């Protein structure tokens, strides 16, 4: 058969890539859900079917668009999932490993295709060299009750079932459950919402096998749908769920066992081979993993479509994928419009003071204000588009956690909170590696071996909690484990061995200073590097990466209790509100998110402590830094009589920056200084501030760190990190 053309950059091709990416993302999410469901009991068959359909769709797409290697991978996975969903292979943790592995392979393949613009850019290795049977464990023969579906269920139902639906029906009948037909009538116009409501009512009661449409009503605007439902609960529960709906129920097959809420002892308990997790009383009960939703109220029916459909993302997705570069360009345009706005405002002001056309000046002023408001809205809008829920990254981290903990023989539960916290896409991209590294460390060095944990009176399963939340203009991400904590002595020994400090200096360190030594290159708590941690990327790189994004990472730890890393990041990098200050005739921009306050400083306020200038602010000592001196520039203009202090704060540290004057506040678009000036450590970039004037943007993080490092070197030659 002739294949469609290989190189196709058309819209259809883009559609393929974008849908394929969505598919693998939801595959990953569904597999992780199955993983947690597996630990709690039995996963919902719907979830497994969803994964099957995901690979199935991907296979169809990939083969249609000529991505043969990807199609082959999808084909293998589809086959394996088919065996699993049809109950021929047991779904074990090992099988899940390889299923997740294949998702990663698919992600890499798609990235390569995307980058190269060629569907055959990669030939991903097959899903697994092992035959499907070896990837999952063949299910041990179950004591089955032979049933004849055709005797029990009308042919009009049977003839339209897919193989999977038939299998689910058979499995449930073998377990003696009752099957019902719930007939409902929908107005065609609102069918999505109404059907969703029915789904949410019925799903907690059992398993929906399929929906059968018919037009017996004779009205072209109405549609009768028969929901074929396997009931796990009592008939009363079903009737309660149907209350208020125009629905009739009818029994297709009577239950042979009592519904579970009245008796559990009568349940047949089929033996299963290979599953590691303990099974609940009802092994095939699909309910164990279904979130039990509150009983829906009639008035909530219409507006409730998206929740249940979360699993089948594609059918409801309203989203568009946009290249972040395009947003950057838009943001630049906004930045330039901002500069034009400033220029117009200036002309407008001049016009007002000039004699003559005062009416025109007022009109121009009014128009300018309108323009400003719209521009602000536009900026907000673009910023909003750049923001993505941090949960996008958490999926990847969950997969990795699972992989690492299994390879180390530790069981680790990743608890995620705040997945819907929104962060700039760029930050998410850049944060992913540092976060992975911290989590890898937590599992490798933090969480103890199960036996060790038992001795310490902790549960066998370790916990790594990943929490994200917004605080002002910052997003905080905490990675907290319940492991052994950081051994301060070992850290100090390692730092001494690496020559960062002498044994004498080591003695005078505070606890916080000791912990912050983990961010120095090569400093480790591990006696010997394991395969995971010995990759040459240390916490120093984590710290550098986070700093380069304008963030800080701090660590707290308690022996025997655990370790917590806290990352503080700006919400966005694209455009920031800044405080413009003047120092010796030049204007600098200080990112407002690092400014705590600004004060007037009279010479009398400045005290000298051991050669360093400080002032007292509300009873606390505030170290002062004269920016002109700090930059090492000889002063040209005379020192003003009264200076200003900008109090910069970051994490726990505060520093007073002495400037000549405050110029004003302005939103600035930061532009890179370029390769040649990449070493200008104290500046994050430059920005235009109107009148075609340029201003350097201070890297407050770097300034604070360098200031304290120099200060400390004077008294105690210790590199301060933190």
């Amino acid at each position, binding site marked *: 058969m002739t294949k469609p053309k290989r190189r196709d950059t058309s819209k259809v091709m883009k559609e393929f890539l974008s*849908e394929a990416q969505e598919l693998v993302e939801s595959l990953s999410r569904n597999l992780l859900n199955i993983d947690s469901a597996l630990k709690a009991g039995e996963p919902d068959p719907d979830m497994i079917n969803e994964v099957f359909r995901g690979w199935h769709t991907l296979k169809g797409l990939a083969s*249609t668009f000529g991505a043969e290697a990807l199609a082959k991978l999808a084909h293998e996975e589809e086959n394996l999932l088919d065996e699993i969903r049809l109950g021929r292979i047991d779904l074990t943790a090992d099988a899940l490993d390889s299923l997740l592995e294949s998702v990663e392979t698919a992600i890499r393949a798609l990235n390569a295709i995307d980058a190269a613009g060629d569907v055959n850019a990669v030939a991903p290795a097959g899903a697994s060299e092992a035959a499907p049977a070896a990837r999952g464990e063949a299910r041990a023969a179950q004591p089955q009750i032979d049933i004849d579906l055709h005797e029990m269920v009308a042919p009009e139902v049977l*003839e*339209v079932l*897919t193989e999977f639906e038939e299998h689910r029906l058979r499995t449930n009948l073998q377990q003696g459950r009752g099957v019902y037909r719930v007939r409902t009538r929908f107005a065609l116009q609102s069918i999505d919402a109404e059907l969703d409501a029915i789904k949410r009512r019925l799903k907690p009661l059992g398993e929906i096998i399929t929906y059968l449409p018919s037009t017996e009503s004779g009205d072209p605007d109405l549609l009768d749908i028969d929901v074929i439902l396997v009931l796990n609960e009592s008939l009363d529960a079903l009737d309660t769920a149907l209350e208020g709906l125009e629905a009739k129920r009818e029994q297709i097959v009577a239950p042979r066992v009592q519904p579970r809420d009245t008796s559990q002892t009568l349940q047949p308990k089929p033996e299963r081979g290979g599953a590691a997790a303990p099974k609940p009383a009802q092994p095939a009960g699909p309910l164990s993993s279904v979130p039990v939703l509150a009983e829906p109220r009639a008035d909530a029916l219409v507006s409730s479509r998206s929740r249940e459909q979360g699993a089948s993302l594609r*059918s409801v997705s309203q989203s568009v994928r946009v290249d972040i570069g395009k947003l950057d360009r838009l943001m630049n345009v906004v930045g330039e419009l901002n500069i034009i706005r400033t220029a117009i405002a200036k002309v407008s002001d001049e016009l007002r003071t000039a004699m003559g056309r005062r009416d025109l000046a007022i009109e121009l002023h009014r128009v300018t204000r309108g323009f400003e408001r719209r521009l602000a809205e536009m900026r907000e809008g673009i910023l909003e588009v750049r923001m993505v829920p941090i949960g996008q990254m958490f999926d990847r981290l969950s997969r990795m956690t699972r992989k690492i903990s299994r390879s180390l023989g530790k069981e680790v539960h990743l608890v995620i909170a705040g997945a819907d916290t929104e962060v700039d896409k760029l930050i998410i991209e850049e944060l992913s590696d540092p976060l992975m590294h911290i989590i890898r460390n937590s599992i490798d060095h933090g969480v103890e071996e199960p036996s060790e944990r038992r001795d310490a009176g902790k549960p066998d399963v370790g916990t790594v909690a990943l929490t994200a939340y917004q605080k002002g203009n910052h997003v905080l991400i905490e990675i907290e484990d319940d492991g052994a904590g950081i051994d301060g002595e070992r850290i100090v020994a390692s730092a001494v061995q690496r020559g960062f400090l002498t044994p004498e200096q080591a003695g005078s360190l505070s606890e916080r200073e000791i912990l912050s030594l983990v961010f120095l290159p090569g400093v480790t708590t591990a006696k010997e590097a394991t395969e995971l941690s010995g990759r040459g990327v240390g916490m120093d790189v984590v710290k550098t990466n986070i700093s380069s994004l304008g963030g800080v990472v701090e660590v707290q730890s308690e022996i025997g209790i655990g370790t917590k890393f806290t990352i503080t990041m700006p919400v966005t990098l694209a455009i920031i509100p800044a405080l413009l200050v003047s120092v010796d005739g030049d204007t600098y921009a200080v990112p407002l998110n690092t400014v705590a306050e600004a004060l007037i400083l009279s010479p009398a306020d400045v005290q000298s402590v051991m050669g360093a200038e400080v002032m007292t602010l509300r009873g606390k000592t505030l170290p002062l830094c004269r920016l002109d001196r700090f930059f090492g520039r000889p002063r040209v203009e005379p020192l003003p009589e009264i200076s200003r202090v900008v109090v910069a704060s970051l994490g726990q540290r505060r520093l007073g920056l002495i400037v000549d004057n405050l110029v004003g506040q302005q939103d600035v678009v930061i532009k890179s200084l370029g390769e040649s000036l990449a070493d200008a450590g104290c500046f994050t970039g430059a920005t235009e501030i109107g009148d075609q004037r340029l201003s350097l943007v201070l890297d407050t993080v770097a300034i604070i760190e360098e200031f304290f490092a120099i200060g400390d070197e004077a008294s105690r030659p210790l590199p301060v990190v933190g």
Partner: protein
Amino acid sequence: MTSSYLVVDDSRAMRAYVAGALRSSLDCRVDEASSGFEALRLFPRGTYDAVIADINMPDINGFELIRHLRASERQGGVPIVIISTQTSKRDVERALELGANLFLRKPFTPEEIVRAVTSCRPGAEASS
């Protein structure tokens, strides 16, 4: 004369592929439905020269769609082309038994889908 088609598939790239193939070689309008239910909603509105549908879809599968169409008074005779990667012989047979005109296995070329659709259109021999 402008013909009109309905493509039912839960993959939007697949819908775009099929619709693109039909539009580029036939003078036609193509409606798209991303689920069986969406198709059910469209049926009473339009008259289609052919319906192209996948089998494996959530909620309402392709079989149910075929039966529903065949039972309907207005559109009982509309040609149905099933496009699926389904490898199961059972499913191919079932689709044809329920009244599908053709079963086209994915992957297919644009030419193949156009040929399939035109071949089962009433009075097809004369056209295209």
